[in-house]
């Protein structure tokens, strides 16, 4: 993967497959400490401890759970390459939390990339799921909630190209604002 936002797009598809009705994506950057945390939380069907183990290992997984393949292992690798780590907590019937930690000053750190696009694509292609996107940089935060967008849109679908482009621009502008107020 060329940017972490693509890993997020991929790993969040597991939450969609797990029949989640709500998925939260959290980005937390600390520029002074050179750390980045990416969290993906869902209220989907969850996994047993055995399944959680197998998700981390691509060779153990492929045969048993077809829905989970290389997504999590690639994400884990991206984190570990920077000296970071990946954690998964999951409870059957409750949901799954995936958190990846990165050292942004490490030479092998892959840039976060276009998160706005990832969020828009997930939201527009999974109209029935509520997506929350929380992006914090040094304590300042932007929150995007598709429930608010849907309230405005009414019966107009989020996957209308003009709406998708507006959402991408809106998220991008707000992230930009977070980085500018230093």
């Amino acid at each position: 993967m060329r940017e972490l936002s693509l890993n997020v797009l991929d790993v969040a598809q597991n939450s969609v497959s797990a029949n989640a009705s709500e998925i939260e994506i959290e980005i937390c950057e600390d520029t002074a400490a050179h750390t980045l945390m990416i969290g993906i939380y869902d209220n989907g069907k969850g996994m047993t401890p055995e399944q959680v183990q197998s998700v981390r290992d691509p060779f153990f997984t492929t045969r048993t759970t077809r829905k989970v393949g290389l997504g999590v292992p690639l994400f884990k690798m991206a984190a570990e390459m920077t000296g970071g780590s990946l954690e998964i907590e999951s409870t059957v019937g409750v949901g799954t939390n995936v958190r990846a930690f990165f050292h942004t000053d490490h030479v092998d750190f892959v840039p976060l990339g276009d998160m706005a696009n990832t969020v828009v694509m997930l939201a527009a292609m999974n109209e029935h799921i509520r997506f929350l996107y929380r992006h914090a940089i040094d304590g300042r935060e932007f929150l995007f909630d598709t429930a608010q967008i849907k309230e405005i849109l009414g019966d107009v679908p989020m996957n209308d190209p003009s709406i998708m482009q507006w959402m991408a621009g809106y998220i991008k502008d707000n992230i930009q604002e977070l980085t500018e107020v230093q």
Partner: protein
Amino acid sequence: MKSLEELMALRDAAKAKMTAREDSTAVTRVVVGMATCGIAAGARPVMNRFSEEIEKRNLTNVTVAQTGCIGMCQYEPIVEVTEPGKEKVTYVLMNPEKATKVVVDHLVNGNPVVEYTVGALKK
């Protein structure tokens, strides 16, 4: 800075388009493979290009959707175009430039771009 007021204006415009679409039953579906294999091969910029071109050319009778892995990972990004009453056309090894050509030739003018299809792959 984009505002929520702008979104309301877009909603009203989209609503008008939807009403226009209801009159024609013919909706063409563009489906992009977005599993790990597709994303790693560059499916996201392909999807974006379709979305932008469809918006730019005001093609109200075309919808864009995503699907998972269809088992031809080495040919990703894969895009399937289904026109009503016609056989599905499967495009392989797509990129944004090819996507633009598919929009112009296939979606606008009705001529599938044969050289990009799975059938044109060298055996």
